[in-house]
């Protein structure tokens, strides 16, 4: 049986569907063609996926099923769905001491694959980048008549970040402190890593003030505050909002995941010298075909065009976990790196054999005898390994290596987003004047792909902050069940995003990378809401729930700031 499905997890899909149908796992082949965006909704095994296999088996003919857009809205998963109650304890000087959270999670009508894990991630990340002596959290899962909730870009971290970053701003307003000052005062210090949080995590590395300072410089914070004073005198509602977010990526050590958190890579050097990489991570738009080719080219000294990256076919690729939780490069890339080290060690053996010297090293693909300066090329060693006329001792012919890498920890990227807004008193409309995003995702392998991830993430964060909402009527019918009714960001809604980076390598993996797929979404929504609350603070506004629709803002202004 061959199953084509648009999924982030081809191998897990195969295991689960084979299990559901009671068929041998090796009789089922799952192929994930160009997937389209995933964002968590394809990190699931839906009933239809098993049903189509069942029907095909039953009638002995190919079956094709395409969901409608409405079915997609109603029968997959939704994100977020929190009602959070926070209490924060702090000293008068702004030092934060304790944080208490009651989190009510709208589970929806039933569990999907990872539903309970999402609020759990929120609680793990609730301290954000700050030091707390005490943390207390209760999660209440509420089954409702709504669409189930599960992983959606950020999956628990945007919720946690929104909570803590709103609370920090509320505290700053309460103490009449600058929101920058209070953040700098409470950050985990650069000399405190690895840092054990009160929620039981071990933050790997960080320099939390660096992106904040960079973002402040980019926006010219002092000048913006001065401008705000003038704007207020002129009767304008201008706001400056900051979020300094932390996230947890590279999902993750297997102890923390239900079905393994490692990732796999196989590297094959063909007799021609071309390289095939098979990755168990199943990228779907993130661009690992490029990133992994870069890593391979760099390690082996071959051209990037000599590398072919293959994924998403369970009959071709060794077992893998998939792409989600910003793990593709941070876990899958690390697996690839270690597979490449094994191959390099083997290539070196052929170099030793051909040069007749032990004193050799690999330089840009060639093997060089350090004492004589003689060298053999990559091609010569590859041919020697495949033709196998003579072999080094205890060495098999061929050049293939497979590595399954178990990460020792998560990674913890961070960053600072600053948003300048202006609210229209008459319409409640919000104009974004500036959007600064400074993200630290560890080592950046491909700047173009990383900025693309940030842009897309920010767009989704903006959508959540300003427009997007799953609306149900009084009979629990989903009103926003089509793209005509659900307010996604469009090109002309989006501000120009001023994106830059700081680079603090992760010690968790040999590449020093942390992951960036979800950063934009996580950093965005509190920065936007903080900015709009700041704009309306002269009216006495302290908090507004998302989304900040013009109707909601207009009503608030009409009521003189009192909801």
């Amino acid at each position, binding site marked *: 049986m061959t199953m084509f499905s648009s999924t982030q997890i081809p191998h897990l899909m195969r295991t689960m569907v084979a299990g559901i149908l009671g068929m041998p796992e090796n009789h089922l082949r799952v192929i994930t*063609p*160009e*997937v*389209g*965006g*995933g*964002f968590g909704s394809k990190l699931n095994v839906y009933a239809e996926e098993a049903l189509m296999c069942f029907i095909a088996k039953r009638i002995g003919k190919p079956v094709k099923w*395409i969901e*409608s*857009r409405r079915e997609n809205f109603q029968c997959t998963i939704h994100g977020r769905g929190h009602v959070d109650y926070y209490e924060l304890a702090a000293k008068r000087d702004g030092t934060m001491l304790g944080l208490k959270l009651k989190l009510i999670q709208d589970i929806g009508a039933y569990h999907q694959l990872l539903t309970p894990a999402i609020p759990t991630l929120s609680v793990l990340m609730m301290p954000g980048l700050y030091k707390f002596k005490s943390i207390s959290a209760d999660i209440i899962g509420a089954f409702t008549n709504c669409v189930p909730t599960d992983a959606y870009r950020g999956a628990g971290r945007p919720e946690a970040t929104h909570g803590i970053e709103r609370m920090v701003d509320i505290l700053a307003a309460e103490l009449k402190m600058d929101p920058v000052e209070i953040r700098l005062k409470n950050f985990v210090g650069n000399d405190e890593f690895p840092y054990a949080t009160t929620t039981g995590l071990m933050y790997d590395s960080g320099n939390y003030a660096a992106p904040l300072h960079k973002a402040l410089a980019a926006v010219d914070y002092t000048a913006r505050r001065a401008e705000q004073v003038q704007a207020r005198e002129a009767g304008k509602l201008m706001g400056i909002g900051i979020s300094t977010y932390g996230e947890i990526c590279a999902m993750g050590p297997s102890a923390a995941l239900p079905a393994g958190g490692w990732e796999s890579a196989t590297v094959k050097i063909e007799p021609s010298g071309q390289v095939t990489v098979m990755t168990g991570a199943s990228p*779907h*738009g*993130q*661009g690992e*075909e*490029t990133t992994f*080719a*870069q890593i391979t*080219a*760099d390690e082996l000294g071959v*051209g*990037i*065009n000599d590398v072919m990256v293959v994924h998403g076919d369970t009959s071709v690729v060794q077992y893998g976990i998939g792409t989600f939780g910003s793990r593709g490069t941070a876990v899958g890339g690390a697996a690839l790196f270690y597979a490449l080290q094994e191959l390099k060690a083997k290539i070196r053996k052929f170099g030793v054999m051909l040069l007749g010297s032990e004193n050799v090293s690999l330089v840009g693909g060639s093997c060089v005898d350090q004492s004589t300066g003689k060298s053999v090329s990559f091609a010569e060693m590859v041919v020697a390994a495949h033709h196998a006329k003579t072999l080094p001792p205890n060495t098999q012919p061929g050049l293939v290596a497979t590595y399954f890498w178990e990460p020792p920890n998560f990674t913890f990227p961070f960053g600072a987003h600053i948003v300048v807004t202006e609210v229209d008193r008459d319409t409640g409309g919000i104009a974004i004047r500036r959007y600064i995003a400074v993200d630290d995702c560890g080592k950046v*392998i*491909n*700047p*173009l*792909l990383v*900025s*693309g991830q940030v*842009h*897309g*993430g*920010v*767009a*989704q964060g903006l959508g959540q902050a300003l427009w997007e909402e799953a609306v149900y009527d009084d009979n629990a019918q989903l009103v926003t069940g*089509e*793209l*005509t009714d659900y307010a*996604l*960001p*469009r*090109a*002309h*809604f*989006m501000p*120009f*995003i001023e994106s830059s980076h700081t680079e603090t390598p992760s010690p968790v993996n040999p590449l020093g990378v942390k992951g960036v797929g979800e950063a*934009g979404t996580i950093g965005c929504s509190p920065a936007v809401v903080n900015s709009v609350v700041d704009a309306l603070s002269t009216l006495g506004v302290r908090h507004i729930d998302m989304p900040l629709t013009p109707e909601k803002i207009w009503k608030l202004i009409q009521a003189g700031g009192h909801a």
Partner: protein
Amino acid sequence: MRRSNGVLFMKNIDLRLRVNGQAKEWSIAPGDLLLDVLRREGYFGVKRGCEKGECGACTVLVNGKAINSCLMFAAQAEGSDVLTIEGLAQGDVLHPLQEAFLDLGAVQCGFCTGGMILSAKALLDRNPDPTVEEVREVMAGNYCRCTGYEKPVEAVLAAAVVARAFVPAASTVVSTFGASPHNSQAGHHSANPRSAPKSKKTDDKKRSSVLLGGQR
């Protein structure tokens, strides 16, 4: 007798049109959507996104005008020139918009890309020097969940510069830029889908199936 969109029709009709410059004659049901017919005939770059005219993934050019093919009966295209994303490149030579989308990383999952590029082509054909606001306004008809629109908008503006530099104001319905000489002068890359610079820390994205927005 065939079923189309839940309605039974007694009789098929003949549809004659040009797709990507080639004359076609297809037997269709009167209620068939242009989207359905194009996909049935193998133009998989035309994507079914929402079937409500909201997402723009099914955008094609009909007589040079960008339309949602999910909102148009195929029969209405009788005698028309239809351009799908498959017809934009001239053999191995990519259109400046395709080049720019690849060079600037404006393609992520690729699902919306075909429609986006065709909307942009329609814009550049009638306005070779658009402002960023005009580009954003036109691209507003194409939903993209991956890119945040920043790089696509940048790519359209970049393509406009290239197109203006190498193609005089001439404009035809099906292909404005045609086999422009830009490719030989585009510096570090050629139209070969497998050619990208050979250094590691580059900004280049490999060209695989993303060219046509994942042709499936």
